[in-house]
């Protein structure tokens, strides 16, 4: 089972729910946690992994073997991202614009382009609380592209039966969220009952309908807002799987790095129920 935890709006409690879901399920199955919010990853603050592996996340960028280059300019012409420019007989490479697609390499008539790894972040792996296998991607500061790191992070292991993979998504509704959602069985949407939460949730529902991924909602900070969220959920026929009322003491505890199930152990059962509902929705869909 592969579950992405997403939201649209930032700060709604994705990581709070994702980490406690992982802890609640760890006694039932092998759980893997992927922190796909590679720009601002926070899952490790709660699940406290000991990282045992760290590898660079790289984009393969072109390197021109200048002595053999005829300066024909074909590589510059085929690059959709303008990561190459030609000045006289020299080809300039702009690593931060390069997507690592390989188009220049394949199109070079002289075969003089080799690809070299350009690190843009790191991929880490380690064991966390309750034997959760923890994977984290980290975008290097000043690097623009999170998506290749998410892609590489998710490829670290193949999904296996009887394993629950939980993907903590970045906020927003652009390409990095889509990369996190690719291939998952279910999207658990954590939102809050405010106009901001609702507006951004609608963006997420648009993506999920395009990608044909079933979803359910956790309403966090229940009680701080109005009814428009629930009306929209009814309209879109999206089930509410859990409510977490607003509670100042909880907010303080979460801020200190404690998890929801540590502060209120009764959420363990609630989250297991939630997982049960997810398996029913996913099972119903595949039938």
């Amino acid at each position: 089972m592969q579950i992405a935890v997403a939201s649209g709006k930032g700060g709604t409690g994705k990581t709070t729910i994702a980490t406690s879901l992982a802890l609640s399920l760890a006694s039932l199955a092998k759980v893997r946690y992927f922190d796909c919010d590679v720009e601002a990853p926070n899952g490790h603050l709660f699940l406290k992994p000991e990282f045992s592996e760290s590898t660079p996340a790289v984009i393969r960028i072109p390197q021109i073997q200048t002595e053999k280059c005829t300066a024909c300019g074909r590589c510059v012409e085929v690059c959709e991202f303008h990561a190459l420019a030609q000045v006289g007989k020299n080809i300039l490479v702009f690593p931060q614009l390069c997507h690592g697609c390989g188009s220049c390499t394949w199109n070079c008539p002289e075969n003089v382009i080799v690809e070299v790894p350009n690190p843009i972040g790191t991929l880490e792996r380690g064991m966390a609380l309750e034997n959760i296998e923890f994977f984290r991607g980290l975008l290097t500061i000043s690097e623009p592209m999170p998506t290749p790191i998410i892609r590489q992070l998710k490829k670290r292991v193949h999904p296996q039966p009887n394993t629950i993979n939980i993907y903590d998504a970045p906020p927003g509704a652009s390409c990095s969220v889509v990369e996190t959602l690719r291939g998952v069985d279910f999207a658990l949407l954590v939102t809050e009952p405010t106009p901001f939460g609702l507006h951004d949730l609608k963006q997420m529902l648009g993506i999920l309908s395009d990608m044909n991924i079933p979803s359910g909602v956790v309403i966090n900070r229940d009680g701080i807002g109005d009814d428009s969220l629930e009306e929209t959920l009814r309209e879109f026929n999206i089930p509410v799987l859990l409510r977490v009322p607003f509670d100042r003491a909880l907010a303080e505890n979460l801020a200190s790095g404690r998890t929801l199930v540590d502060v209120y152990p009764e959420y363990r059962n609630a989250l297991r129920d939630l997982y049960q509902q997810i398996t029913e929705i996913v099972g119903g869909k595949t039938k």
Partner: protein
Amino acid sequence: MSTQNSRAKQLIILSGKGGTGKTSISAAFAHLNADQEEPRPMVFVDADVDAANLSLVLQPGNLDPKEFWGGSLAEIDPEKCINCGACSAVCRYDAIFPDPKNDQVQWIDPIACDGCAACVYACPEGAISMVRQQEGNWFQSNTPYGTLFHAELFPGRENSGKLVTLIKQQARLYAEDIQSQCVVIDGPPGIGCPVISACAGTDLGLIVTEPSLMGLHDLKRVLGTLRHFHVPSVICINKADIYPEGTRAIREYAAAEGIELIGEIPYDEKVPRAMIEGKPVTVLFPDSFAAKAIQEVWHKTTSLLQLQED
């Protein structure tokens, strides 16, 4: 005061972590500026283009969408495809499969396609072409508090950085036209491409953080980003009384880094209440603790922006 043609100062509001209150604070800034005897003409930008919320509070009238065309995606003409597989062999984005509707031809998943065109050149039949995509809309609108530039990226699209660059530049040109002194940019979360686009060329970064381990962790990353692009920065702590120990940790961090802490805003349920009413908190609850604290932060921010004028 500034000379006639001098460039408007640009303030970028960032946080790293989402949901720390950037937009509520930006909206209050818009109102506080407008609510003076002689308001400075000011321009506002919502640079969080895939979760754009500032317009929900500033409530612009007469929205006139302008199309945003981003990059191109590859499309296969099934009439020309001979199913040789040359395209999928070169695709590094796992975007090309047998067409689910007709397994005799290949199909490109638009959600997975990166738009690199490698397949276009690999196809021996010339069956693949690049098709430009409309990736969203952008708006220039009037609000009760000044002119707002915002955008809506279509869900799941790329190029949010380009859209941010576009509305920021439009805002800057407009600011020159109306001789505005200041452009306030409500930034996106994270530190990646839209954030880099949002902070390019800005004069001051205001980091809105919250007193949690998460807030501090992400604050460090966003400060690193602003420093990398040579943007001087200050910090304010939102919901500062939720976890006093966390607030102390941020104060210590700011002191150690030599970054000025320009304000602490207490948690106040008036903030979400104002959001639900679709108004800045300073309009509906001007005497609330949060509104008073935001006012302090605004005064300090404006004076910092002017200090840097000389």
